[in-house]
């Protein structure tokens, strides 16, 4: 049975030590994290920073929008070939406006979808938590597949100076 364990710290330095301790004890990166009530500078606890994929969403959205707009403008003009002002049927400068707008629109919509996806909210399984985190305490939380390494994790947290350890 998977368990979630949290060590509570009043100061940032011992919490950072606990993160180092868990890393050195061989716990898998990504299985432990730090919980704070306010954003600390990135990397302040030596935490694992997972690579986000947000940039892919606007890029793919823009490519899809551009492709669609190219098809839309070219197909409609070829379907209704009206010569306007002596310009060619496929007039690039007239097409550019629609292509730009549809590319931007798709990029924006994809970004909104991406940010919702990347936020991982709602977080239905909160795991171990403590209300004192909202009051400035720092939580180091570790998620374990089973109880086999729970004692090791508890030892690391205690050694770093956890004020309290809770399991959920």
């Amino acid at each position: 049975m998977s368990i979630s364990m949290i060590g509570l710290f009043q100061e940032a330095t011992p919490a950072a030590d606990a993160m180092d301790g868990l890393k050195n004890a061989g716990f898998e990166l990504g299985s432990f994290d730090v919980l704070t009530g306010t954003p600390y500078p990135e990397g302040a606890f030596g935490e694992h920073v997972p690579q986000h994929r947000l940039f892919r969403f606007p890029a793919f959205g823009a490519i899809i929008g551009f492709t669609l707009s190219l098809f839309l403008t070219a197909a409609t003009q070829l379907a209704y070939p009206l010569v306007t002002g002596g310009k060619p049927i496929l007039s690039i400068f007239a097409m550019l406006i629609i292509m730009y707008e549809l590319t931007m629109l798709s990029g924006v919509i994809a970004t909104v979808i991406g940010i919702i996806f990347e936020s991982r909210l709602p977080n239905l399984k909160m795991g171990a938590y403590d209300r004192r985190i909202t009051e400035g305490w720092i939580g180091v939380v570790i998620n374990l597949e089973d109880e086999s390494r729970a004692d090791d994790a508890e030892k690391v947290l205690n050694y770093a100076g956890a004020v309290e350890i809770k399991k959920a």
Partner: protein
Amino acid sequence: MVNLPKKENHDSHHTLPPENVESSVIVEDLIATTNGASKSFKIIAIGLGIMSVLGIIALVLKWINYSDDSTRWGYVAALVSFLLSITGGAPMVAMGPVMAKANWVRPLTRLAAIFSFAGVSTIIVLIPLLFLLPPLVVDGTRRRSIWFEAPNYSPHIWGIIGMVLLLITGIALFYSAALPDFAVMRENSTGWRQKLGKKLARGWVGTDSQWRTLRMRIGMFGTFYFFVMVMVNFLYTTDFAQGVVPGYRDAIYTLYHTVSSWQGGVAALVIALWIVRRNMKLEKYIHLDAFWSLGRLLFALTLLWIYLFYSSFIVFWYGRSENDKATLDLLVRGPMIWAFLAGATFIWLVPWWILIWNRVRKSINGMAIGSCVIIIGLLLDRIRLFVSAWSVPQEFIHQKWLKQIPGTIYPDIFDVIIALGSISLSILMIMLMTKIIPVLSIWQIQEFNLLSKPIKFIKGHATLIAKPD
């Protein structure tokens, strides 16, 4: 004899940096601001509620009596512009300085974002104008507008879509920054506020990746808000002012309206901060530095008003064509000259000479006075622009330029009640929001304390600010 420099007390003309406050105290203090309501708060809220209802009744009665005469709706159009400026302009403070990584802005962002909710009032007042605005084709002929070949009711549809989109984007900007505080409410509030916090926190626990995506969301919705706000200002000024006056073409008008909207928004935020600081006893969180920094911004925006007005004016002045002269007659030197002179005095001349003094910008009361003057000036400026535009009868819509300048239009009793009602509704919505969620962002004040420390610097005092991002 040697003249020695006069010894001064250094602290007498320098402000001491704010002291840091314990995180638990911040939570306790700010959660307490949402609990209960004082007797005076309830009386004011009830009074504003009654005024709001009266305003809506007056709007309906005006529609029943004058729905066939668009010239009587200029003050309502000016009111929409005024409300759009205040409620749309203030949230810009929640993203502009944040993106510039200004530390002083952290305690203000929540209050600035809350102004978005008052956009409901703007939409309510806009509704009758949508029915009064002429379609693109009038009497079988297409009138001059920005909508070439567009469907007949494009200005109406895009006008309301723009306003609703601004409201939604503003609320999204508010919510994206409020998630951590809903988690604080989940853990520290009681009763319905705790349940609301639990529901809206969406399982927020404050992991590193949650904080990272929070920053992304604020940046993204802030950018969207900026785009939508400019778009709405463009649509409203072109369709509901320039579009109803024959021959009125001004490329700078939208920018003028947008920038003066920021000016009004910042001024309204200063007044709201002054009230919150005083009435909620939040002096240890809303520091003089915030007023001082907003003062610089407000001063710059005040100077921009005259720059943009003059840039616009000079084109008509030197143009001297018939429609240029008619536009100046209508908007500046004609029937609304009283509004022009009073507006320019209050939105630019007086605040210029109030805010030019560092001592005033560095004082909380001085900033509040300067901001009140700007709000009055903004209202007069919007009256000048929209009352004069709507005073043109719709029979003139196909003229090449305005050949007959209408007379001065004064507000009727409905206009006065609608104005008081809609402004009351806006204030009421902001007041009620302060009882739902802490008026200052808890996590941002904790971040403010985390990243800044008051230090002794040689013989003086300073704040050491970390800028890690």
